[in-house]
């Protein structure tokens, strides 16, 4: 049974020092409501694993400004000048991982796989210090699985069992993140009856989803805007 909870309830599920896997590519597929809750909480020393760190003051950018973050793990922070600034001033640790390695490492975290060998970043600064192995005549580096304490993901719809579907390219990192944390919380635009989604269209089976929260954002002109102020 999935628990349908209020957004503020998620603060009981997260503790100081946790590692959060947060879905999204830029602001698309990002759980904006869940992030707002954390940004207005007193949580500290969080590590966020996400492709980007939102934009300045938007999405995960809010978490940075609210001082919750200790570390960010992702592939592309360049577009959030606040993140660069915090990093330069020593307020934020950053771990840069190629986007494909990030996605695969999280998938491994959810799949019981300890690590995998990839050619990406072999011989580069990012690959430095990582084990190099030759397999069948080709060289690879070892990348370890990434797991989280809590995953915060965003879907278009959940059914009443917790099965999820995603809108267009808002899918991105959400399905792999749904598999890789002890607790998985999905923010959704809509909740529909079980049976409404076809077995063929479900992307994230309900087994992966622990809690579902209704989004406080609605889409206007193709962009999410806040509709209900968090209580």
């Amino acid at each position, binding site marked *: 049974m999935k628990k349908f909870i209020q957004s503020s309830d998620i603060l009981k599920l997260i503790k100081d020092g946790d590692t959060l896997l947060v879905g999204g590519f830029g602001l698309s597929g990002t759980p904006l409501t869940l992030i707002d809750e954390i940004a207005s909480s007193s949580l500290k020393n969080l590590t966020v694993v996400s492709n980007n760190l939102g934009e300045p003051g938007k999405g995960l950018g809010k978490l940075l400004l609210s001082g919750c973050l200790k570390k960010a793990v992702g*592939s592309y922070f360049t577009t959030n000048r606040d993140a660069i600034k915090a990093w330069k001033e020593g307020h934020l640790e950053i771990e840069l991982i190629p986007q*494909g390695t990030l996605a695969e490492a999280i998938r491994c975290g959810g799949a019981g796989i300890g690590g995998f060998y990839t*050619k990406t970043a072999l011989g580069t600064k990012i690959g430095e210090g990582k084990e190099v192995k030759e397999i069948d005549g080709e060289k690879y580096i070892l990348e370890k699985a990434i797991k989280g304490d809590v995953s915060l993901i965003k879907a278009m719809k959940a059914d009443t069992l917790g099965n999820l579907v995603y809108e267009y390219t808002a*899918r*991105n*990192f959400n399905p792999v993140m749904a598999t890789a944390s002890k607790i998985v919380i999905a923010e959704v635009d809509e909740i529909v009856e079980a049976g409404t989604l076809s077995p063929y269209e479900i992307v994230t089976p309900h087994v992966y989803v622990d809690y579902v929260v209704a989004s406080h954002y609605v889409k206007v002109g*193709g962009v999410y805007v806040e509709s209900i102020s968090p209580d």
Partner: protein
Amino acid sequence: MSQSARIKIAKRIAQELSDGEIVNLGVGIPTLIPDYLGDKKVYLQSENGLLGMGPTPEPQQVNMDLISASKKPITMEIGASLFDSSDSFVMIRGGHIDVAVLGILQVDEFGEIANWSVPGKDVLGVGGAMDLVAGAKKIILASTHQAKDGSPKLVKKLTYPTSGGKKANMLVTEHAVFTFSNKGVELVEILSDISLEELQKITGANFTISQELIRN
């Protein structure tokens, strides 16, 4: 760089693409290529989870959950498919992308690429650059001939951090087309009215000149 120079580069690379190819376009100049494909049908892959990327939508049809890897609104072509990031990088890293067209900071005379980090500058982003370098079957580089400070992009030895050992196949600048092989870099085409001497002067690597050099 002027828009006309950027378009010249995009047009020339468009000629290199073949009907039916699966192509990933990096940010910047590469995103101009679709406008110059004419009748050729190539399938654009976007690493955030789409094969079959179509043109920019009309303003009233923009949905910021249907975006390119450059985070710009896009549409889907007929036959497009959606997938998650891990499946997208199965496609990229597994060698299923026919051509990646990438921007660069530098490339050395054997085609090794630097396109993610400037020493001493706060570039904290790699994105899918290294994955595309490692995984694409063919790599075409789209770049101005020189950086903003006038330094050459094609160099003898990289001074910027490498993006990985895999080599580019071709470099297209506003002045010239070069191809790379184990033997080094070869000038195959001149695209501007630049003289050979001047081209050599603004290029940081020694290149051989193709016996079939084309001068447009």
